[in-house]
């Protein structure tokens, strides 16, 4: 299967171009700093903190750290995927490669698999190490760590697939900028939807729902947030009332299975459009 050849080549390119090295070094710095920060939580107050208080503060801090992590992950994926096809078309690499008995479908799927592998190789160890260190220094472990990984990786795969689709037609910078703007719009759409939900405004709620369906990054981010929250925090936020729904760092419930299925369909559909688009591309 020549798609695997292309996938290996894509992964090899990111390794040789030192994307992994830079990510690894920066991640080590960030994890070291945040772990030190977590270790200071029990000493925030003069009086000893209860386990519930530590869990509440640690989970909030962890959500913020992981928000940054999801941002870095999503944008590493966008910047790796945006030029993945367009740069090879512009330089002429595709002329020599696609004159071989390899189909365009194999080429695009191979690129996607290579980028997916990149995301998995970075995200799983980095997030796992962060969660394990938090457990070691403050004794807090999020209730759904595997679900967290799945949601945050899903979010990256959504923007990665969109960027790869754009890469079949536009220069790398176009895909990068578009991915960044759409990701930001979806995040704000999620906040708008939360406000609509909190205040019972149908229009704002529909805006939020539409943005979650059109680009399911924020919907998946809410799933990631939910995975990190202890039950005590969810109960406290519910008691605080409906305005909590507008908080982009809070989610009372996991996304329903139908929404997760929609995300999978969305990714598959975007990949199919990318293949279709590249099959019609004049080289």
């Amino acid at each position, binding site marked *: 299967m020549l798609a695997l*050849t292309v996938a290996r080549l894509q992964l090899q390119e990111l390794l040789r171009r030192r994307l992994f090295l830079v990510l690894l070094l920066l991640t080590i710095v960030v994890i070291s700093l945040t772990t030190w920060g977590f270790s200071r939580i029990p000493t925030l107050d003069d009086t000893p903190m209860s386990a519930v208080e530590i869990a509440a503060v640690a989970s909030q801090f962890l959500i913020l750290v992981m928000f940054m992590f999801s941002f870095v992950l999503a944008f590493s994926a966008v910047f790796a995927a945006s030029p993945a096809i367009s740069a090879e078309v512009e330089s002429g690499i595709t*002329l020599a490669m696609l004159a071989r008995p390899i189909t365009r479908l194999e080429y695009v799927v191979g690129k996607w698999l290579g980028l997916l592998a990149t995301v998995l190789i970075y995200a799983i160890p980095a997030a796992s190490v962060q969660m394990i260190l938090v457990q070691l220094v403050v004794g807090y472990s999020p209730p759904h760590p595997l679900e967290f990984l799945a949601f945050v990786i899903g979010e990256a795969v959504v923007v990665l697939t969109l960027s790869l689709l754009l890469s079949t037609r536009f220069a790398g910078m176009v895909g990068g900028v578009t991915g960044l703007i759409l990701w930001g719009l979806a995040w704000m759409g999620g906040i708008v939807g939360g406000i609509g939900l909190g205040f019972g405004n149908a229009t704002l709620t529909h805006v939020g729902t539409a943005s979650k369906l059109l680009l399911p990054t924020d919907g998946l981010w809410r799933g990631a947030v939910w995975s990190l929250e202890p039950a005590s925090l969810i109960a406290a936020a519910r008691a605080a009332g409906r305005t909590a729904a507008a908080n982009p760092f809070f989610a009372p419930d996991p996304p329903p299975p139908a929404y997760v299925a929609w995300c999978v369909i969305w990714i598959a559909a975007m990949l199919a459009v990318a293949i279709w688009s590249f099959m019609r591309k004049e080289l």
Partner: protein
Amino acid sequence: MIDAPAIRTQELTKRYGSINALAGLTMTIPRGDIFGFLGPNGAGKTTAVKLLLGLTPPTSGDAEVLGAPIGDRDALRRVGYLPELFRYQLWLTAREVLALHCELAGIDRAAWQREIEDALAIVGLSDRGSGRVGTFSKGMQQRLGLGVALLGAPDLVVLDEPTSALDPVGRHDVREIIRALGERGTTVFLNSHLLGEVEQVCDRVAIVDHGKVVAEGTLDQLLGGDTVRVRVVDLEREATNGLSRFGQLDQDGDWLVIRGIDSERVPELVAEIVRLGGRVYAVEPRHESLEDRFLRLLGQPN
């Protein structure tokens, strides 16, 4: 289909919006030929190559490569291609690029090592096989591209301006490689605007202009003998009609130009002019080069 021609096209056209890049290309290239595809910049040469390799779909028309419709996977396995815009993965070594193309071409893994080392040796890169492509000069990258095109002893090798980045030594090497391919029975499709290069290696030539073939044939057919210029006075215009059996006649002031004449017949021609009453002051035999013919076909002053 062993007996099918290497390339056959029928009214192949390609339009990009309002631009007619290829306007009805019809040609047949037999197996084993070294075929020169000549034309000025923008004549449609590279477009034709891209259509033949399935990199771009034709607007209309029909073509076969090695007896199969364009884009056929089995046929592509037996085609080697050096693009005009030659570029390979800069982060790979030369050997890794060749291994990648062995894999893409479906060459048996047991044969890779030999194929790669042979290709490096042929293009003169044996000592740079472990170097990253990103550290190579343009000329070395073009040599590598030629090596890529030779992998797996293809039946058809398509070379699009294969010497554009090479120095005179490199150009000589490429000519030798093309000749060796010809001796092995490989069909070579050489896209070029370097007429001297084509003249030195090609068996057959097609000249393309504005997306159409304006002349095609063997070099002998195309050049059709020599040209002789004779400065002659006192020769009646009617009398020159009797000279048309020597070749195609043109009058250029005092000069009579006879194209397509067999050089052995020049003394006979001069004797005939004298017999008809002409006084001959100069005779300039000239071998018509491909460049002369090319410029004449494209309507350019020589």
